């Protein structure tokens, strides 16, 4: 009994660690997409931030300076996306793909040239990395059955960015639904013409949304290289940006359901990593690759309206041209 509880606790902890970058990135995408800008570029922003954070942390020895560099890189890309899509009415999907492809090449070239380890950055130690934090009381509760295990293994012992991801969900929900910025954000994604008529800058609101998206995707990228792992490796985002986008759609562009989708996807990944050929009762051995494909299949099914219905912000993808 206590052993299965331990396994459940470890699974839950691993799910939380796997979900953290997805949550941060998906919430970043939420701001961009709710403002009417397609955010295919999540992947590129994460990758750029992961590289900038690890490279800077390796040189300076400080995880916080690394995080700052990661955020700067990600926000810079978000602004480039805005320059192409908002200022110059470019195709948002094309711009996002361009950033993803450029970053996939650029991080590998720069990493290889600067550190000469085949695109990897030097291993971070000590202050260069966000270490797990033991929450107060975790040690004294270890003796308590049940609660001690849950608090000690699941709640405590993560790095600061996991807690940031957890905190981001209510903060984003409050920002989007309870503030003036959130109201304008949602309005600009549904009916930019009306927002413009009310005297509010459509471009300004969208740029602000993209900066927030840059910050959150930057946190997600830095999580990969200086918190969860201890270095950057090439293409380390490995599709997580697209998975976050899928989670955002699966969560119907709303913060709390998006969190649910991220947890579901991360749980599927954790289970897949643990199973690795272990037969399930009644089903037999499920190939790990098919579990890996599950989030994508679910998202397609949702988009097709077979499970629920995903309704995108109305003005998404359409550049806004002010009438003269």
């Amino acid at each position: 009994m206590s052993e299965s509880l331990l396994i459940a606790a470890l699974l839950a902890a691993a799910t939380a660690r796997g979900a953290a970058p997805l949550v941060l990135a998906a919430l970043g995408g939420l701001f961009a997409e709710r403002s009417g800008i397609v955010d295919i570029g999540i992947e590129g922003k994460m990758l750029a931030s992961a590289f900038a954070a690890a490279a800077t942390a390796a040189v300076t020895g400080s995880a916080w300076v690394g995080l700052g560099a990661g955020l700067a890189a990600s926000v810079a890309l978000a602004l480039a996306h805005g320059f192409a899509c908002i200022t110059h009415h470019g195709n948002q999907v094309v711009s996002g793909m361009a950033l993803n492809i450029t970053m996939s090449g650029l991080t590998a070239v720069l990493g290889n040239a600067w550190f000469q380890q085949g695109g990897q950055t030097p291993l971070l130690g000590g202050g260069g990395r966000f270490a797990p934090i033991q929450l107060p009381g975790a040690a004294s509760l270890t003796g308590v059955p049940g609660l001690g295990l849950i608090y000690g293994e699941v709640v405590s012992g993560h790095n600061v960015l996991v807690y940031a991801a957890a905190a981001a969900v209510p903060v984003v929900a409050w920002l989007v639904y309870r503030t003036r910025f959130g109201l304008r954000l949602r309005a600009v994604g549904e009916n930019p013409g009306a927002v413009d008529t009310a005297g509010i800058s459509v471009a300004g609101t969208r740029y602000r949304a993209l900066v927030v998206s840059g910050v959150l995707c930057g946190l997600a990228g830095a999580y990969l290289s200086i918190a969860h792992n201890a270095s950057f490796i090439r293409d380390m985002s490995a599709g997580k940006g697209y998975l976050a986008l899928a989670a955002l759609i699966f969560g119907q562009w709303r913060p709390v359901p998006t969190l649910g989708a991220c947890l579901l996807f991360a749980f599927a990944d954790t289970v897949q990593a643990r199973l690795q050929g272990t037969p399930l009762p009644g089903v037999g051995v499920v190939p790990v690759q098919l579990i890996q494909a599950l989030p994508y299949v679910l998202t397609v099914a949702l988009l097709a309206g077979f499970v629920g219905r995903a309704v995108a912000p109305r003005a998404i993808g359409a550049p806004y041209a002010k009438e003269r």
Partner: protein
Amino acid sequence: MNESRESRSVAAWVAPALLPAINLALALALSAVVIVLVGENPLRALRLLATGAFGNAEAIGYTLYYATSFVFTGLAVAVAFHGGLFNIGAEGQAYIAGLGVALLCLGAGGWPTVLVVPAAVLVAGAFGAGWAFVPAWLQAKRGSHVVITTIMFNFIASAVMTHLLVNVLIKPGQQSPETREFDPSTWLPQLAEVAGALGVEIGRSPLNLSSLLALGAGALVWLYLWHTRWGYELRALGHSEAAAVYGGIVPARIVIVALSISGALAGMVSLNEVMGVQHRLLMNFPGGAGYVGIAVALMGRNHPIGIVLAAILFGGLYQGGAELSFDMPKLTRDMVVVIQGLIILVCGALEHALRGPVEALFRRSPAASQA
């Protein structure tokens, strides 16, 4: 109205010739910044790249071999673009088509080559079209955005193929996930052999019959887009869905047909790679060709002639980039991916940013006085 008058008054060569040249120059200039950051000389890198890509017959052969795949994916992306659709799934469609071609070649050992080749063309097209059909149908009938679904289908294709290669199709007693080598009778003939049989001597390279097929596909796409009713309907849909529907066009059917054709074209990549060069099914054999197709289509302005030229340019980048990394180890082949991304950015996302000012420079004087 105003805009169409303006664009008509611009010299005819500006849009198809000057703009791509400026775009390329801008992308290369941005890449030069990266090369300087790395600590190399951009001009020397460019010279090495050009010699590596076009310096001798063998290099040109490799360049054209890469270009062949890019023509197919470029055409695939362009066909969808004409209908206002963005097919990001060429990578997955090519990958799945490779499965079909591999199954055919594994099963057809000993068949005469003249029979295997047309069968493989059909199978590659059918598998590629089949993988594109689901997103196409979902877009047409259920309104699921094709950009998202084709991205998802790339990941699903990758998972399915990894499963098949690791657990099912792997050659017994072997570690690396790939099939056994096909029977030589099912290999796509190399162009050097074909030319040799006709008494013409050309250098040896991986160049194979699929290159000629790529040119044929370009011609067929041109016919389809500009000389058939379906092509007309597709372009009408791409310009304005409301006007197309008013004109009696049924978008759902056009979307499904166009995306299936797009998928079939992407599937042809497998003829070049699987049947023409590797002679077995390898993990992740498309190697990003589907994404290069986006850059090729944008740079080639979605026209078959432009796509062939842009594909040769990108083939040169891939071949020259490989040679470049020998002489400048700091510039790995990833540099080519950077250039590719920057070209998509400059030609695609920033097209309006450049177009206006450049056209303004070349506007003919009568129109200029009108404006």
